[in-house]
């Protein structure tokens, strides 16, 4: 189960590893759009945008539906997972930052201890 979740999360990470695809999600968060709309918006060929939407669709982040000749895209059922993936990235950033802060504080602690001893002399 844990492994399954991890695999799903990796799919989300991979789908989100591209700036255009993140932009597409942001755009679809505001309003549904056709592939043609998205291609224009991101200055891409229809084929290029179809590929990006395909990756997002496979990760469950986007759902598409063809009505007549137009394929409409909207945010998919795994939207929540994208949020989870983002939160995990954000957590990693802060953890890395705070690890460095820990090191800076450790140095200040040592300095304060030395200064304190010197003052007592």
């Amino acid at each position: 189960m844990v492994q399954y979740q991890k695999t799903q999360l990796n799919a989300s990470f991979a789908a989100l590893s591209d700036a255009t695809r993140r932009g597409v999600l942001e755009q679809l968060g505001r309003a549904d759009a056709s592939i043609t709309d998205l291609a224009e918006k991101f200055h891409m060929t229809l084929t290029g945008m179809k590929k990006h939407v395909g990756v997002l669709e496979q990760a469950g982040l986007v759902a598409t539906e063809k009505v007549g000749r137009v394929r409409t895209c909207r945010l998919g059922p795994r939207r929540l997972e994208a949020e989870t993936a983002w939160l995990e990235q954000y957590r990693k950033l802060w953890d890395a930052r705070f690890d460095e802060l820990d090191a800076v504080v450790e140095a200040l602690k040592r300095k304060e201890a030395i200064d304190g001893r010197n003052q007592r002399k």
Partner: protein
Amino acid sequence: MDAIRESEQIPMKNSATVERTSDRELVVTRTVNGPRHLVFEAWTKPELFKQWWVPKSFPIVLLSCEMDVRTGGKYRLEMGCGDAKPMTFFGKYLEVTPPARIVWTNDEADEGGPITTVTFEEKTGKTLLVMHELYPSKEALDAAMTSGEKSCVGETFDQLEETLATLSASGAPS
């Protein structure tokens, strides 16, 4: 109390938590091994702040850092990331209460950025940091979470993820 025993313990690896506590709020918590007056000092003195805000493990360089940490003061950080255009982060300190609390704005975003509040709470020689980010709307937080809004950093993690994916590709099911 057991202050001596406390300081003799092998420090445990502290770990941050991140939670979306409402439509508009994110909360990051983390314990740092040191009294809060030192943690506060490391946060508010530019020469110390520069040593930790951009972790060494990231391919990001802090190009410039100006901070006037007092209520009403301003800050401006410029970060470089590979060949990409440098990113500028700036805003104003709405409240600075040593050594307990700092509140600042994040004005680099086009549509309203969040207001960040960090509190420093001392517990037996360690400091609990609680960082609260309040976005102007649900849409603003949703957008931040789907775009690479912290993009320099976002890209860094992308590179990391890609590297990890490449490394594990041989053993992992496709």
